[in-house]
Each structure stands twice: as C-alpha cells, then as structure tokens.
C-alpha cells in the first residue's frame, strides 16, 4: 500500500484544562480536520476512532455528533497504539473498497475528569474503576502508569548504565519545543536542575519524567493520494505503517527494555522502503522519558543500550540529528495518547510552520504509538508529496 494513501487534513481540539467532555473534544478536532482538508462533513464515509475506554461503540457517538451515516465505522482498542492503527485500518478499508474518505481520531478529557476545579485533584486514576486490577496490585500499593513504566526505566539503567540526566535530556528537549508552540500546555523553561530537584513520583521517575494530565483531541482525514492532491492542503503521503504487540505482557522476557517498537519498525520500514537514516523528524510516543530512549533504540536510530548518550547529545532538539516531538510531545504539549504526534508529523511535512518551529527540509517523518498495557505498538511513516 506504499504511496497509495495520504493524510489530507488534520487538527487538534483545544488543549489543556478545557472543562469539556471527551466526545466534545474529539468532535471539535474532527470538525477542524474536515475544515483543514477543505471538505464537507458529508464527504466523510468512514469513521475509525478510539474512545475513552468507558464509552461503548464510541465511533457511533461521533457519527451522531457529526450528523452523518457512513459506510465503514468502528472503534478500536490498542491503547496508545490505536491512533496510528486507526490510520492503517482506514487505508485498509479504502483499499478494500469499503469507503473513500475516513476520519480518524482520539480525544480524552484527562484533566477535567480528574479535577473538580483549578486546584483540586479528585481522582488519581484515568482508568475507569471497574477496569483497575483487583489483585497483584492494590494490596502491594502498585498503582498508576508511572510505576509500571519506571520498572522499565530502572531495568534499562541497570543493564545499560542509563542515567537520570539522560532521561532529563528528553524532558528538556521537548520542553524547548513546547515553548515555540503557542498551544502547548507547558509554558516555562525546564532546566536540568529543575528536572533533578523535582519530587519523585515512582523512583526512578520524578515529576518531569511523566507526561501531562491534560485534555485534548486530534483527528486526521485519510483518503487516496490522488484525491488528497486535489484538496486544499499539501498532501502528506502514507509511505507505510507497521504494528507489533508484545502481548504476553510488560513483565515478560525483556519486553520492558526491548519494546514492541522493534517488530513494528521492521514492518513499517519494509512497507515504506525507508530506513532510519532517511527519517528527518520523529514523533515518538512519550508517555514517560525512558520510553523515548527505549523506542529510539528499537527503531534503530542508535544501538540498543545507547539511547541515553544519544538523547544526551542533543539529538532531539530542533537543530539536532533527529528533531523529535517538535510540538512538545506528551511531556510538554498535551497528552492525547499519541494522537498529537500524528498531527505534528503531518504539519512538519507541510512546511507551513514559521521558521523557528520548522524542521529544516523535512521530507520524511516517523510517528510512533505505544500502549495497551505498555506492549502494543504501531508505526506510521509519512513523506511530503513531490
């Protein structure tokens, strides 16, 4: 399916502390993406999206809000890997002749659902109560995503000598990007001293290793490359995609330090004919700093175990070897489970950013999505149309 399909439109909702419902956020992003492409709502004949986990047949709710009946419609459940998988499923559905123009997206009001007002957090977990583990977790005080991921960071530090300063380089690089993005939630510079002196959450992770609790949504319009070229925006070609799932679980084998990105990368590079050295910008699922380090290794941007020195070299900065998460990522822009990474990958390839935000001469972007109990992964490789 290389070079047959494209992303013709993309947008985000309002980000941060919106007070909005999850479905409303996604509707806002979807309507903006349709406008961005220069399409009408009635041009959409497919919906592929992931809802908040507690919404049944989420895609149908979105069709109802948009006011359309469609040919192909489904929700998917692959955690933070869903957002890229939705684009892949959209391509497959078009390829199968089931539809022509698919809207994908994800939205969640993570801040609004956990806070009663500006200052008061009323709920710790984003996961609905009935989906939380009932044993082998609460009795040990094992709660929250930071600890799960920190287990992997600890093992990575133990095996490869990775340091907290190296994780800090990830947080600081993404904060620098966020300061150039007016929509980003985080507005203040972050120094290494700030990073190291921040309180621990689940050690080795401190506050700035953890992604934001923020509201937000993003959406894309997937159609044929031929059609995309006739629309308003510069078409962004879907070169290829991949997916892999370490379904046996995070704590099995070496899954914590050698992630499902490895298998997903292999597929995506093969489909696209792209190799790591061809990638001009990466948009990596950054739920936590250490996950960025592990994925960069798994994608082959550096050798396994050398992710720490790689990020510490300044590689992720806008003028670095691999400008990464150039809108600030989930650590500093907003955490929308990988959806904003897709949006940013597309935007960088349009070359419509002001020069201070633009990755110079960006022709190829790699986007990663990760989740589903930390073991599901998907990859999207995009390129600027000639």
């Amino acid at each position, binding site marked *: 399916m290389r070079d047959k399909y494209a992303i013709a439109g993309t947008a985000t909702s309002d980000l941060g502390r919106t007070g909005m419902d999850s479905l409303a956020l996604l509707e806002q992003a979807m309507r903006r993406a349709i406008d961005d492409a220069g399409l009408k709502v009635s041009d959409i004949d497919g919906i592929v999206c992931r809802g908040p986990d507690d919404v049944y047949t989420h895609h149908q709710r979105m069709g109802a809000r948009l006011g359309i009946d469609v040919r192909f419609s489904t929700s998917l459940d692959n955690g933070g890997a869903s957002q890229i998988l939705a684009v892949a499923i959209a391509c497959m559905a078009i390829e199968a002749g089931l539809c022509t123009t698919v809207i994908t997206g994800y939205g969640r009001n993570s801040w609004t659902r956990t806070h009663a007002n500006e200052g008061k957090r009323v709920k*710790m*977990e984003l996961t609905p109560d009935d989906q939380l583990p*009932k*044993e*082998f*977790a*609460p*009795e*040990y*005080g*094992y*709660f*929250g995503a*930071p*600890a799960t991921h*920190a*287990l*992997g960071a*600890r*093992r990575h530090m*133990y095996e490869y000598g990775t340091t907290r300063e190296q994780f800090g380089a990830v947080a600081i690089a993404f904060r620098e990007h966020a300061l150039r993005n007016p929509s980003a939630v985080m507005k203040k510079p972050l120094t290494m001293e700030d990073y190291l002196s921040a*309180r*621990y*959450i*689940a*050690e*080795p*992770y401190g506050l700035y290793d953890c992604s934001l609790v923020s509201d937000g949504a993003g959406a894309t319009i997937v159609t044929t490359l031929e059609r995309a070229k006739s629309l308003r925006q510069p078409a962004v070609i879907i070169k290829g995609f991949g997916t892999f799932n370490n379904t*046996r679980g995070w*704590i*099995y084998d070496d899954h*914590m330090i050698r992630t499902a990105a490895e298998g997903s990368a292999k597929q995506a590079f093969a489909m696209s004919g792209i190799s790591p050295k061809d990638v001009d910008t990466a948009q990596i699922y950054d739920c936590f700093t250490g996950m960025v380090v592990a994925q960069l290794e798994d994608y082959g941007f550096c050798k396994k175990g050398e992710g720490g020195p790689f990020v510490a070299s300044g590689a992720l900065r806008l003028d670095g070897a691999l400008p990464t998460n150039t809108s600030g990522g989930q650590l500093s822009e907003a955490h929308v489970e990988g959806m904003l990474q897709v949006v940013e990958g597309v935007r960088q390839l349009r070359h419509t950013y002001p020069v201070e935000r633009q990755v110079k001469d960006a022709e190829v972007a790699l986007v990663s999505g990760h989740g589903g109990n930390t073991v599901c992964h998907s990859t999207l490789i995009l390129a600027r149309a000639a």
Partner: protein
Amino acid sequence: MMTAVELPLPTPSIETEPFWAAVQERKLMMPTCNRCRKVTFPPTVACPACSNDAFTWTQMSGRGKVFSFVVYHRVYHPAFKDKVPYVVAVVELEEGPRIISNVVGMPVEDVQCDMPVTVVYEEVRDGYLIPKFTQR
C-alpha cells in the same frame, strides 16, 4: 473526624482463589503443567507453553530475584500514606514466573536489580496474609 482508610485486600478470582488460600497457610502454590512442567502464573485454562490443559498446584521454593523495582514516593491511595517510601518489585521466582510484590525488611535505597530474595508472609489486616520478599 478522620476515618482510617483500610489497606486494600486482593479480590481473588475463581482462577486465583487456590493461590490466595495457600498463602493463608504460608505456602506459595502455583499451577504446574503436567506435561511440560512449566509453572504458569496467573493461571490459564491450558499451558501457554504447550497447550496441555492438565495442571497440578505445586509449592514454589519462595526463592527468586528482583527483576526490577520502583520506590513509591507519591501516595496514590490514602491507606499507603504512612507507607511511603515503599518498594514495588517484579520478582522472578526460581521456577520461572514473575510476580508483582513488595521488597521489605531493608532500606529502600539498598534494593538492587537481580538481588536474591525469599518470600515472607505479611499480614495486611484482619489476619489476611500476602506474600512479600526480603533479601536472602
């Protein structure tokens, strides 16, 4: 007036109930495949290694090592307010399975990956025991 929040107890499933019942007798019991002898935990209908569906609950040595661990500083549940900092670890048992537990009986800063540990049984409340691990 403040009401004390009770520490959470595990809620056994139909499949894990024999495990928790054995823990109350201070035994670590897990299903072992009658064909390939692989120990599987948590339990499944058939062996994930060989698909055989006949298991025998067998007693584990209680020895293992810390595969990885974190130190909680943030209080996620009010009952753990006085417990921080505490260690949550993935413990790899000698027989193979990896389980979530706590490492206890030592300063949190001395816990290490690959450190050898052995099981201890600690009361959560009301006489209910859960397995934890200590350095050996």
